């Protein structure tokens, strides 16, 4: 199968993309020890550090959110593959401090294995660290066990909220409590329209017919609830937001954060049209949109589709969301 991408060596994609990333955003981030993306201006040692890990190929996630008020370190793996435990341990050692480390891991088999092994070793070395595991995908059902639910774009607002809490000088236990509260009140549902090509192997991640879409598709082509006929923006918005509202048990009067995260090939035009559809449904239910974002945060190469994210917000979470931050792909002033 022909692969139409501007690349050089398919086996050297991560190193080359990090090289360019460091050139593009050298004022905010730096790449250390090959695979660690760190803040250009490190946070004060007295504050909790926020660390994450994950495969490449989802740019700007995850490393695009390293910066003041967000992540301190992102440990980068290879394309769609978790970094190994030694590199993750190196990041935890780098951030070792009395205030401690909040370690955010997305629920994918490799990430969890690496994260758990590195954390075990770090704790043995006396490093103070607590893990938050994101698992907000509701494709397997909102009641499915946490281990069956993947971590999707929800990690990004979580970085922002936990990062703001850490920047405010809160203790590790406080930052953890805030992060878990947000984590337990968020949900994501994805939809795919066309496949993406794995940039290292050149193979398609999945197949969908011309007139089909699939709700629940994961960010590596993991199957969702099965293909269905293509729906309009309003119809798609309605199906998805209804599932999400149910998943977070949002009631009349509740305030939601809504994020529409483009998968790579879906236009902002489409995402704005979908967001308008989302608002219509929420208005009918008496649920308000307290804050919304539309853009590409966590992509899947040239896949068409998007992830729809919601979180139930309270005053403290909204306050932290509004605090200033300065990362390559999210800035609040």
């Amino acid at each position, binding site marked *: 199968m022909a692969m139409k991408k501007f690349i050089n060596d398919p086996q050297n994609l991560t190193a080359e993309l990090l090289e360019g990333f460091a050139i593009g955003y050298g004022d905010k981030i730096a790449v250390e020890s090959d695979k660690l993306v760190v803040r250009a201006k490190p946070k004060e040692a007295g504050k909790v550090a926020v660390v994450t890990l994950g495969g490449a190929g989802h740019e700007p996630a995850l490393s695009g959110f390293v910066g003041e008020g967000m992540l301190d370190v992102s440990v980068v*793996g290879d394309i*769609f593959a978790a970094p*190994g435990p*030694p*590199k993750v341990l190196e990041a935890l050692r780098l951030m070792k401090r009395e205030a401690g480390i909040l370690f955010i891991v997305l629920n994918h088999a490799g990430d969890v294995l690496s994260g758990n092994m590195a954390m075990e070793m770090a704790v043995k070395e006396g490093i103070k660290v607590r893990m938050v595991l994101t698992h907000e995908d509701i494709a397997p059902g909102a009641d499915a066990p946490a281990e069956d639910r993947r971590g999707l774009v929800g990690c990004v607002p979580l970085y922002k909220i936990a990062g703001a809490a850490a920047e405010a000088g809160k203790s590790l236990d406080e930052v953890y409590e805030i992060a878990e509260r947000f984590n337990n009140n968020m949900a994501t549902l994805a939809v795919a329209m066309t496949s993406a090509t794995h940039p290292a192997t050149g193979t398609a991640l999945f197949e969908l017919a011309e007139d089909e879409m699939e709700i629940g598709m994961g960010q590596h082509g993991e*199957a969702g609830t099965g293909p269905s006929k293509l729906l309009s923006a309003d119809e798609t918005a309605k199906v998805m937001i209804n599932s999400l509202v149910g998943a977070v048990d949002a009631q009349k009067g509740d305030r939601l954060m809504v994020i529409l995260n483009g998968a790579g090939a879906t236009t902002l035009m489409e995402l704005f049209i979908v967001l308008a559809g989302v608002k219509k449904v929420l208005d009918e239910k008496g649920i308000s949109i307290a804050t919304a974002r539309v853009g590409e945060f966590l992509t899947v190469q040239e896949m068409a589709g998007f992830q729809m994210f919601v979180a139930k917000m309270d005053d403290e979470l909204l306050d932290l969301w509004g605090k200033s931050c300065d990362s390559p792909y999210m800035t609040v002033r």
Partner: protein
Amino acid sequence: MSELIGRDEIIGMILSAVEKIKANHEVLTQLDSAAGDGDHGITMLRSMQAVEDTINDSGGASKKDLLHSIGWAVMSADGGSTGPLLGSFFVGMSEAAVKDGLDCRAVAAMFEAGISKVHKQSRAEVGDRTMMDAMLPARDALKVSGNGASITEMLKAAADAAADGAEATKNMVAKFGRAKNLGQRVLGHADPGATSISLIFQAFYEGLCHKNQD
């Protein structure tokens, strides 16, 4: 006769596994394209390159230190789930490989320690369609034949058990990893991770036979 193997034989067996994976990585990629995201062949190739580089750079490191370095190198090869699991196999082997010359029972114990280490991290069982479907039957075969058989006979039994275990994954739906989300779509294809383990145990057996002929 009390047959003993040492550092040279173990290196021979591991390098035989490196060659086996290199020769079969395209098959592994094809299997993973049917049941995963298609990168297992590349991941295994990269992991095995890390193994080979570690052996080449090992100098006079002891068997125990060498196995530990190999495990750490495999974990560092950024292979998603494969790296931490396969790396744990070698680290686990290292923890049991204390004696200079290993008899049949000690070789069995070494592999059992490696497999148990992986099992602890993976938490998958036989029937879950993971590399444990090849590893756990191999461990059982080692337990049965670790007493009395020759080391080559024992490795043959482990390789056969791993191969049968990998073959059986063709009829399994995955409970772990990305293949889990593909449900019934994976049926008819062997699990790539289990297939890799089966190839590795076959290569361990062949590598020791070859070494014994030298």
